[in-house]
């Protein structure tokens, strides 16, 4: 059985890069990944970007990057799959390597929101709901997460203060992460004093506009620079329309994807010591972790309050700082998640290290449209 090795990482600082184009960001992350791998003989590029077509109007992004990176030509793919575009790209890269169609796949995640004002970016994010119904009604993704947050807090007898702890911990985690967008701490009081976006979700529960690019080199052969393997991965579709979920607090595709990945690797969930989870609007963190079966229902925020999930705990969660601290770069986020798990597993180039062998990256597109999960193992 072919193994899938991770040998190079590119993690650009997440910021508003007004002076750089989408293509430039992708190229910079790519070169960083290839340089760190010491491998330039790639035969495939997969680019994950959620809004390059809508915002930058570049639907041929992978070819545009390939023009400069590998002018002789190679296999190129563009992946657009909501918040899991990046994890989906890694999943596809793994499939190509395992099938023998590719040897060295460069997976790039890139998105750039600062080219437009927030109101335009908000319109593009309506594409993550069923636009023909919820979009026309003005129902946004933030409002759907807000409904879930209200249901969650009420079901588990928690309050806004409990939810506010999530972004506070995320900001703490991001303080020493080299590529994080915000390296400053915030308090529960700051969160509770910030304006509502959609009650009970406040500004400090939400990501800021962000530009960034991350890249990872996946290969069929082990190199000197190899630091981890992709042990398993899976992508599962769910329900795009919020009201179709049997239980709005259970993201079924996340449960299915995690189960499948653990089964593929014949791994006990208790051996996972690090998780990078897509924590949209704070409530996404508890929702996904509890849907995965790794944290019992209603326990995430309670354990966070007890000081759990930090570096050195039996399972550390979002050492990157999640969407609040590290930032949310839409379709690129999944590639960042993979690069981060590898960096934290290995203590790569000054990144803090969680001493464990297995890390899981979990994401969703929309609120429950699609889930993707990737299991990474340290070498």
């Amino acid at each position, binding site marked *: 059985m072919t193994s899938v090795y991770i040998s190079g990482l590119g993690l650009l600082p997440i910021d508003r890069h007004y002076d750089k184009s989408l293509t430039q960001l992708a190229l910079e992350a790519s070169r960083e990944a290839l340089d760190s791998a010491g491998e330039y003989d790639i035969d495939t590029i997969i680019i994950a970007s959620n809004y390059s077509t809508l915002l930058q109007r570049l639907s041929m992004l992978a070819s545009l990057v390939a023009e400069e990176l590998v002018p002789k030509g190679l296999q190129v793919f563009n992946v657009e799959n909501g918040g899991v575009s990046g994890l989906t790209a890694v999943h596809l890269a793994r499939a190509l390597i395992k099938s023998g169609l590719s040897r060295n796949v460069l997976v790039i995640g890139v998105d750039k929101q600062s080219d437009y004002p927030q109101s335009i970016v908000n319109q593009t994010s*309506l594409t993550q709901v069923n636009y023909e*119904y919820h979009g026309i009604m*003005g*129902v946004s993704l933030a409002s759907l997460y*807000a409904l879930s947050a209200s249901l969650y807090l*009420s079901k588990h007898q928690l309050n806004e203060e409990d939810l506010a702890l999530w972004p506070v911990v995320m900001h703490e985690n991001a303080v020493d992460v080299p590529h994080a967008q915000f390296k400053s701490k915030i308090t529960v009081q700051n969160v509770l004093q910030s304006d509502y976006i*959609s009650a009970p979700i406040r500004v400090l529960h939400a990501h800021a506009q962000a530009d960034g690019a991350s890249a990872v080199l996946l290969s069929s052969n082990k190199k000197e620079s190899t630091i981890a393997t992709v042990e398993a991965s899976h992508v599962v579709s769910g329900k795009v329309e919020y*009201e179709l979920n049997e239980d709005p607090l259970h993201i079924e595709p996340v449960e299915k994807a995690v189960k499948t990945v653990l089964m593929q690797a014949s791994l006990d969930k208790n051996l996972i010591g690090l998780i990078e989870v897509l924590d949209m609007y704070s409530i996404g963190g508890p929702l996904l972790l509890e849907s995965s079966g790794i944290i019992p229902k209603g326990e995430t925020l309670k354990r966070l309050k007890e000081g759990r999930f930090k570096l050195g705990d039996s399972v550390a969660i979002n050492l990157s700082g999640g969407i609040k601290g590290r930032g949310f770069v839409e379709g690129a986020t999944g590639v960042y998640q993979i690069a981060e798990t590898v960096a934290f597993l290995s203590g790569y180039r000054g990144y803090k290290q969680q001493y464990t062998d297995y890390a899981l990256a979990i994401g969703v597109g929309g609120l429950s449209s699609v889930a993707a999960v990737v299991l990474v193992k340290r070498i």
Partner: protein
Amino acid sequence: MAKLSISIFWRVRKHLYTLEGRKCLECGRAHFPPKNSCPYCGSTKLVEYYPPKKGKLLVWTKLYETCDDRSAYRPIYIGLLQLGELRVVLPLTDIYDEGKLKPGIDVELVLRRYVEDSDTGLIYYGLKARPIL
């Protein structure tokens, strides 16, 4: 993405004016928006299902961060409702006393304006829910 597509709205107008959903003859479950096959069991044996005009509010939120085309309506109240066998997300309207907006209250459907395409463009209507007080 500045304006809605007239033809997209024209195709879904009946669904937005009546909340016409579907009910599965195999598993018996109703859903909205209407699909060509049941999102729960996959059966294509579906019949139209029109929910009652009155139902219950399950949970709600008040959305401040909207797109530019909704700025005149900001903030927008949005609720998850149970209408007969259907669960739907709809905008809420006629909220004069937010304190009375509690999960479990009765709501009824009313036809209201969703959005318009600029000052001289089309006006798009659809159902919203209002509390019965």
